[in-house]
């Protein structure tokens, strides 16, 4: 098993407009990207479970081949920068993805 943080070059989150936060997991090696995709550790269902949200909060989930990237976007409950929003830029929401375990023996 390896952690996603060992396999991906970039794992990040950021606002996509004022009502959504988007997450990018980018790989440099296409074979690794294909392997992670095939492992199904990153799907709308696994992401919803990890973040404790209903799948209906996932606005989009895309496997983006040109950049070897898996990308998903969630709706915020309140728009960015409303009082009490702890992350106005949405830039620190990716951390739980780092430790996702990927079976590399398959």
């Amino acid at each position, binding site marked *: 098993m390896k952690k996603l943080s060992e396999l991906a070059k*970039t794992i990040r989150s950021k*606002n996509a407009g004022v009502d959504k936060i988007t997450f*990018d997991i980018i790989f440099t090696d296409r074979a690794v990207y294909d392997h992670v995709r095939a492992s199904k550790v990153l799907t709308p269902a696994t992401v919803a479970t990890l973040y404790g949200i209903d799948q209906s909060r996932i606005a989009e989930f*895309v496997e983006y081949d040109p950049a070897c990237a898996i990308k998903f976007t969630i709706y915020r409950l309140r*728009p*960015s920068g*409303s*009082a009490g929003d702890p992350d106005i830029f949405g830039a620190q929401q990716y951390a739980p993805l780092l430790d996702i375990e990927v079976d590399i023996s398959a």
Partner: protein
Amino acid sequence: MSSIKIICPNGHLGFAPLKLESFLRGVEAGPDFIAADSGSDDIGPVPLGSDTCTSPEAWQRQDLEAMLLAARRIGVPMIIGSSGDTGTNSRVDRYVELIREIASEHGLTPFKLGYFYSEVEKERVRKAVGSSNPVLGLDGRDALSEAELDATERIVAMAGVHPFMKLLDEGCDVIIGGRSSDCAIFAAAALHRGASEADAYYLGKVLECASFCAEPYGAKETVLGAVAGSGVTVTAMHPDQRCTIASVSGHAMYERSNPYDEFVAGGRLDMRNCHYEQIDARTTKVTGQRFEPAERIRVKLEGAGKTGERFVGIASVRDPYTIANIDQVIAWAKQQTAERFGNSPYELFYNVFGKNGVMGELEPVKVPAHELCIVVQGVAPTVEMAEEVCMTGTRQLFYARLPEVKGTAGGVAFVLDEVLKASPAYRWTVNHTLAVDDPLELFPTHTVTIGV
């Protein structure tokens, strides 16, 4: 065959200063335009609502000076969009004034400056609200209601290429834009030189954040984008950065829900069939992009409304029993505030760092740290009330009544025994689109001659 070169030195001019070395390399490469975006809705609703900048003027001035002096020296137009973080009228006016001051300081020979505004009167929007052609919501929002419009302090419209092209057609040497779509700033220049819409908008898309489309990661460095014949090339100007297939294609998905579509006033850039090719060590070429014009132009509107005055309090906890029962502690403080202020309109927010302060309800880690920092925000209609709400909500953490607590001399630690006045609280009330017949309707343009 049309050919155009544009350099972009900064992805949000003013937010952090540009890096001069790669900028000067870019200038030496002989661009036809020097352009940058200077705004973002990433910064939250406060600057738009309160009509302020989040960027220090010294940084804005420094970058405008570097760009203006270079543009005038090599005799090419300089274009700025979304002036002063938000692109409101007052920010446009201030940037025009900064250009005037810089030109005067350096004794620049006369040049033609064009500028346009992006603020939209609420009454203009009200005409559409509830009409047969309503103000449609983006990102799952309902159509704009009269009540939300009433709660809105200020609205800007997101310009497409139209006001930029009008001012370029009028021969402007410098353009200072109100709120604009990032990619339109660059696309307008390319269209002005005869590039196809597909190449022009892709060029804008890839240049908008400067060196974010290059690797290794390093912001605020200049990149050069070009259209020559068919296709777009993008080249890093910093000697240690490269625009690679990975970095350029990866940038297409930055800060957006999907990496395939870029919507602007007037159409949609379709990047589904983009083909990326490394043509030299620092340059990637992109072909296959398409542009689909909209049947009817819909302009994006951004609006912010004030929710109240705001104070911030800070309290910390080290006792493990108190940490384990922090929800009860906060409930006590909330209850004490409610008893004092009853049904008055106020809001109290607690971000508990060490528990789930950064991620709130998205936090999967349920075990708290050995110490917590609680940031309290009190929001209320008046400054006096907001201060007292926040003070009550903070100080009552000290007096929380936990049944088995050993420490009976104070339940939290304070780094400051006071609450701090913060910016008023605003929220994004408008994230919608408005249909227009004339793409210039919301963006009145003006020109003026600057210099001696």
